[in-house]
């Protein structure tokens, strides 16, 4: 891994984040009405004092360029504004919600890639077999089901018919003060349905993608060579073929991350999962703009980080790219 590449990638990431900050600023300015009122939230409860303090903090009486610089300066200091509804700084609100979202998104990502790739590889062994047909049908269905509806159907199923998984929240009330392991198991138990709901759509896509990618690789000369030298079918499939077929899967996994966060927003709302998506939903209902903007900023940051990680793992996975700027 070369450092100058990493530094350049990080610098570019920061530039993108700066773009998000500018966009946030523009959105508040472009929204109809007095920006101070917009920031205070359209609850009608904003007092004159509150509006004055907002005008002061954001410099709303100064020229637009100065306002923008002030806004960027605030964000650089970790100040994303104050939520007037929750009566807390936005940054601490998000800090409370970020871990559940990361847990949900990463679990769903891992689940969908692992199961999807296994299904795809099995399907690629027999391009016209039952498994292949199943993967194609499943992928088309997976694409068409609204993720929030899958969640609701699972809630109905598991709340009334098979009550084996909790359908709401992240922890049981009675286990909130439990010790480490019990608590972790409790969270995992609550994680099953939301993570599965989120994983299903992407799982179908990964299955279809890895099937196509494997079929392409399995037709290549080096696979024939590997078979000719007597490598076992399992070794050919998983060692020779999958390693080469993995690159497009990795690319898509990186690109999917933003969509995964969008999906998490809906899934968190369905399962009352206490993450950033749920926070975004609550703050949008209350027109709590600083919080919404903060969530948009933070979620975009997560996508940027995921993209950098994808680029790096791409270089690790493909030796041809190593050492290149």
């Amino acid at each position, binding site marked *: 891994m070369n450092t100058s590449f990493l530094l350049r990638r990080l610098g570019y990431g920061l530039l*993108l984040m700066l*773009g*998000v900050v500018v*966009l946030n600023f523009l*959105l*508040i300015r*472009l*929204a*109809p009405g007095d920006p101070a009122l*917009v920031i205070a939230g359209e609850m009608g409860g904003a007092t004159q004092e509150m509006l004055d303090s907002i005008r002061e903090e954001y410099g709303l009486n100064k020229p637009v360029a100065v306002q923008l610089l002030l806004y960027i300066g605030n964000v650089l200091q970790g100040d994303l504004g104050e939520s007037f509804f929750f009566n807390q700084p936005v940054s601490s609100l998000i800090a409370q919600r970020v871990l559940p979202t990361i847990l949900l998104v990463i679990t769903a990502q891992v689940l969908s890639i692992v199961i999807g790739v296994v299904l795809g590889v099995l399907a690629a062994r027999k*391009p016209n077999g039952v498994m292949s047909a199943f993967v194609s049908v499943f992928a*088309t*269905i997976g*694409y*068409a*089901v*609204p*993720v*929030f*509806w899958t969640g*609701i*159907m699972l*809630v*109905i199923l598991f*709340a*009334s018919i098979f009550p084996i998984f909790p359908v709401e929240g992240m922890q049981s009330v009675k286990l909130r003060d439990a010790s480490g392991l019990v608590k972790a198991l409790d969270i995992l138990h609550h994680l099953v349905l939301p993570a599965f709901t989120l994983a299903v759509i992407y799982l179908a896509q990964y299955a279809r993608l890895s*099937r*196509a990618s494997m*079929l392409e690789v399995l037709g290549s000369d080096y696979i024939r060579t590997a078979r000719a030298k007597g490598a076992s079918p399992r070794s050919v499939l998983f060692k020779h073929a999958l390693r080469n077929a993995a690159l497009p899967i990795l690319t898509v996994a990186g*690109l999917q991350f*933003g*969509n995964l*966060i*969008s*999906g998490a*927003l*809906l899934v968190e*709302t*369905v399962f009352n999962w206490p993450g950033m*998506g749920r926070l*975004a*939903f609550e703050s*949008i*209902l209350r*027109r709590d*703009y600083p919080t*919404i*903007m903060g*969530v*948009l900023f933070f*979620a*975009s940051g997560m*996508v*940027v980080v995921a*993209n950098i990680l994808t680029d790096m793992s791409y270089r690790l996975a493909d030796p041809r790219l190593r050492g290149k700027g």
Partner: protein
Amino acid sequence: MRDQDTNFQAESPALEAWRMFRRNIPALIGVAMLSLIILATLYGSFFYGGDPFDIVWAPQEPPGMTPEFPLGTDYLGRDLVAGLLTGGGPTLAVGAAAAAITMGIGISMGALAGYYGGWVDNLLMRVTEFFQVLPALLFAMVLVTLFSPSLFTIAMAIGLVSWPQTARLTRAEFLKIKQLEYVTAARAIGARNKRIIWKVILPNALPPLIVSATLTVGVAILFEAGLSFLGLGDPNVMSWGLMIGSNREYILDAWWPVTFPGLAIFFTVFSVSLIGDGLNDAFNPKLRER
């Protein structure tokens, strides 16, 4: 001999694709299903009257219990059939409009970037990457909340967050096609850039773009449903997403008010995706074995 030659030329790629498509049974099922859904949403309420917001019966009447309300009623006692028939309109309209906006922005950006290359390409691709960093649904939620939730705003918001993929696809096609001989030939006879982009390259880049447009309609429908489910749709217009969202609190008492609209969304997007797959096969016969 001459006759045969002209006959051979008459087989245009579009005609060939149509012949492939016509023999693709899943795609035809998709067309039939989608036509049925569109007809039902356009003319259904003409035969089956009733305002979907009217409270007409006891709340949460299960389906099949009352002949007048075959699919039952929701938590307020509103007729589900009336809701399903009128609720498809906004969903389909927003889906189509958003897909058109997506294709419009995406094709323009991708065409300019791919054709001109150099700094234009660099700049436009940076803009594209920037939009890919924003989590689409979240950004659309922000736009809709800031600028009042009308069908137009929703279609605009979905279009604004969905175009980057189309732009990338268009750019890749343009990069490939602009090196071909007929483009050089067009330039040699003095065609201007504008003409080469829109009249020479774009028509030849269309097949993958048509497939992508079809799939974009599906994604846009899911998007609209998600926004309405969250309560960010136009509150004065009944839509499938809104039906699911407004009955969400009562799912453990009544499964039907959320199940039927969900199935309606599913079958709509499913038929769109069957058509998309069929078009893809028709345009790329070589890929069919995959």
